[in-house]
């Protein structure tokens, strides 16, 4: 998001909801070789993933993101992340990052862990600004990246945000 101008007035360009404009472009953006169709991310989240993990390919799988299918207002949504890993010295998750496709900021939370965790299983509560996919990317100690997402409908925003 571009910063607010000092006067508090919003500049004409930034007044256009950027993610809505970008949504129209998202179909043509193919930064990663997504293994399945329908995985093209809105630009902001895609960029955030790239900024953190570089250009390495993401593989679908090993990660499970659990969110309720509905949230009334998105103020506090329980999220559970599990990564299928033996969590041994030779084979473990080293980092998990969570991204929101329709929040004002794509970054949600990141975790750094290792064999001492025993199990790559984390629970927390997050805020959702709108109905969207929440994507988790797990980086293994061999550098490979695994990903999955969950979709939650946020019902409160429907009255004005849609249409």
């Amino acid at each position, binding site marked *: 998001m571009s910063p607010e101008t000092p006067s508090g*007035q919003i500049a004409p360009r930034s*007044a256009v909801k950027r993610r809505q404009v970008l949504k129209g472009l998202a179909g043509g953006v193919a930064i990663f070789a997504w293994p399945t169709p329908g995985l093209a991310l809105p630009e902001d989240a895609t960029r955030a993933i790239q900024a953190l993990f570089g250009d390495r390919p993401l593989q679908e799988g090993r990660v499970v993101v659990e969110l309720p299918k*509905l949230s009334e207002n998105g103020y506090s949504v329980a999220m559970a992340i599990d990564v299928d890993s033996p969590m041994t010295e030779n084979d473990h998750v080293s980092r998990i990052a969570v991204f929101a496709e329709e*929040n004002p900021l794509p970054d949600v939370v990141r975790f750094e862990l290792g064999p001492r965790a025993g199990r790559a299983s984390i629970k927390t509560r997050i805020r959702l600004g709108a109905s969207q996919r929440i994507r988790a990317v797990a980086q293994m100690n061999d550098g490979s990246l695994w990903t999955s997402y969950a979709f939650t409908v946020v*019902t*409160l925003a429907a*009255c004005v945000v*849609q249409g």
Partner: protein
Amino acid sequence: MTNSATITRRQFIVGASAAGIGLSLGVLPRGASAAAGPDEVNAWVRIATDDTVTIRIARSEMGQGTLTGLAQLVAEELECDWNRVTWEFPTPGQNLARERVWKDFSTGGSNGLRGSQQYVREGGAAARIMLIGAAAEAWGVSASECSARDSVITHGPSGRTTTFGKVAVAAARQPVPQNVTLKDPSTWHTAGKPKMRLDTQDKLTGKLVYGADLRFDGMLLASIMDCPVKGGKLVSFDADAIKDMPGVKKVLAVKTSVGTGLGTDGVAVVADTWWRAHSALKALPIEWDFGPNANFSDADVTRLLESGLDADEAFRGNWAGDMDAAFASAEQMVESVYKCPSQSHAPMEPMNATALVTADKCEVWCPTQNGESALAAAAEASGLPIEKCDVHKTLLGGGFGRRGAPDYVHQVVAIAKAFPGTPIKLQWSREEDQKHGFYHPTTMAKLRGSLDADGKLTGLHMRISGQSILAALIPQALVNGADLATFQGVVKPGLSPSMDQHQISYDFPNLLVDHAMRNPPIRPGFWRGVNVNQNAIYLESFMDELAHAAGRDPLEFRLAHMEKNPKGAAVLKAVAERSGWGSEDGKARGLATMYAFGSYVAACAEVRVVDGKLKIDRIVAATDCGTAVNPQQIQAQVEGSFVYGLSAMLYGEITYKDGQVQQDNFHTYPSMRIAEMPLVEAIVMPSGGFFGGVGEPTIAVAAPAVLNALFAATGKRIRSIPLKDADLTA
């Protein structure tokens, strides 16, 4: 004691799940049958062997005829016999279980039809193709040789016929068509026609079971009182003082969190009847901590709003040219300040919900504008996984935006958790409903306009100062801090895709519309028409002021800025012509126009002032909603929405003293009655090619048209509503 009308829970559920039987218990909730069954052709359509067609409706019905309109759209593509059509609500739980096959349940923003018309028509068309396919297969002929009409399938070459009911089961096994072609609305015979509503009959006999009317065996009733000051807290209550009152079962604190600091912190009494629960609650000694807003009053609101009228910082929603230059070279400047207060939704049926919570299940029955929102609330309040919860929607005794928020679901589930296995119905009193609303935001506006020597409008500045709904309810939807929704009806084209349905009607050479956000501690919400209402009063009253200052005809003055908006100009001209604008008959007339919720609307009001009292004789209203799905219901919406808008203009205001809402019932929050109802002539003039909203847009033009007519009648410009205290003597 007769108890014959009591519906036992078992009967209710059995009744609800068996097609036809449900009717004897009222028409709701019929959701239990929406699970896939043998007579389901697809998610939208069920057809019984007797050719009864049941159409699934995902959106709520709160009076706007959404249910009938959606059924018409499905029936049109299905080519079924409209006289055999009935309907049912799938539950939001079923929707989730079937991967949201019915999509969005949200009913608001005048989106019920236009937001789902495409996919419900596709659903109807797909079902028709499958029915024809099944018949063709049975006959061993090509489906392309067959057609359907009025639930009868005909094989053209042979003339053989069958009915939908005979092939429905086989149709369900047909391949699901992937790409369907929809009919051109010009060929419609069921949609687009003034059909009678499907939900009328039971509303005339008292049989319709609203949420407030639900009865279950063993049910207990609850009345609730939330802290009368927002942000305050329940400190204590003396349950012993009322424990011996008749019927009282329990007194309990109810604390919920609906949003940032906006939850309930109150107390409920549960008894064997609501009257006893409510009587005991009124007698209950309660100690509150009114918190930071204990001294908040209406004067604080006014001060806060006034501080924004000339503030340096404001968010921009529309701009063009160089307004300062236009002002600098003005021949004449016009300046006015307007004000609109908070409003309560005040639906006729006060908030209520019924819940049954057990160790592993939470079921809720309630009127709601968004079944999925109510379901999410049930899950969050019960602590159970969403798959263990469900919501059965009733028809709504009015919604107007209020029933989009499921605060009452949180409450009833919190209470029902204390009574596992016992159904609990929570009924709010009218007082509770008035004091704990999500009120229409309050704003002021300062408008300045410059005219040149020829009386041409050269520059316009509209400064809105006031409350943001999004800042209070959905802060993450602000765009760099701006609440773009505050510019509804006056927004710059292209500013945001979601706001393009609310563009300003006029093309001004030099323009600035900006918003100084001011957020008093009043909980705002989406009130029918939302921010279009006050923006229409501000802009359309001021356009009238400018026209008069310029010595020009208000119609001609407006049309001069509508060259790029031919559809807007068309509705404006239509009302002017029908109303006799410009005729020398001595009648005082006023105009207003708006583009909102994707529809072009205009109104012309005729008023008189008799003994200092306003008499609105007639309002001609035109709406171009693109495509008219049910013209007679559109007329009803125009007539009705004017009552809503004019009630606000005449009487409606929510004010505060010591942090508390002062208008706690209809004696202090009056609503229009039949004696004040003007003759409304609605011109429905769909120009085709788009689907605009119907339930809300016309509200906005009612008040400014009347205020402008009032000026024509008296020479008095009323810039602050409600009118009730204004001196109207000429």
